[in-house]
């Protein structure tokens, strides 16, 4: 049962990470790519970490519980840090004058599509 949950969490993490990268590579401009990075990166990381934390409860002992707790703590940290970093990058791009994509075909990314 525990293994099953672990597998689900890990797989889901990889799936969302795949989505993240897909968005990161295919979206047309910086801002839209940040959507993918901000949401996908956070969720996939948190899911995988949860999976690994559960995995470490395999042979429950005080030490392993604490280890699992630490992994969960990392997950929480990333849940706070990742959107914050996304915001900071976004703000930096905005401040430094990157123009949002407006559907026109002037972007070189557009050609790739």
């Amino acid at each position: 049962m525990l293994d099953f949950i672990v597998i689900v969490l890990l797989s889901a993490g990889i799936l969302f990470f795949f989505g993240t990268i897909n968005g990161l590579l295919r979206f047309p401009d910086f801002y839209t790519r940040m959507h993918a990075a901000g949401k996908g990166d956070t969720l996939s990381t948190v899911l995988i970490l949860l999976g690994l934390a559960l995995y470490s409860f395999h042979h429950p002992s005080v030490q392993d519980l604490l280890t699992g707790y630490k992994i969960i703590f990392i997950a929480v940290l990333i849940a706070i840090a990742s959107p914050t970093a996304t915001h900071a990058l976004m703000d930096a791009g905005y401040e430094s004058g990157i123009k949002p994509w407006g559907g026109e075909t002037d972007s070189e990314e557009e050609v790739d599509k």
Partner: protein
Amino acid sequence: MYHLLMFILMMLFWILMSGKFDTFHLVLGAISSLIVAWSSTDLLFQDRGKSPAARASEAGRFVLYACWLFWQIVLANFHVIYLSLTPKPIKETLSPHIFNFKTTLKTDFARFVLANSITLTPGTVTIRVSEDIFVVHAITVKAAGDLEGGSISEMERRVAWVFEKREIGGA
């Protein structure tokens, strides 16, 4: 008072991390917790108006909110996958734009939670918060609409419920 709270929190944190329960390490932990409590209490607890009890209930409500938010994040990720994999030309699926809105939330922390929630939920990312103005990037018109009229208010309401324990008008 807050220093004591901070000390206890930090000591707890230490014990969980340390995993060593002998006196020597506990003393080290106590010293460390003292140092952090001395230097950083004002960081964690800037708003001193609330009683510890209020804080505790706030934490409880926040857990509930976090569960809701988690679901929203999952949705957001499916949204991203959909947008990036859809065979439709990108011009039709995306119509990104930047817009502002004004929040009614009062405390910094609530605004912070709202901003990050906006980032994590489908279709929107917070670019900047200056005072009560949020600058938001929306990836689709629908997402923008959600935020302005629908889910934004929904989210703001929930955040307000967690931190300011009041209802905000709207959906």
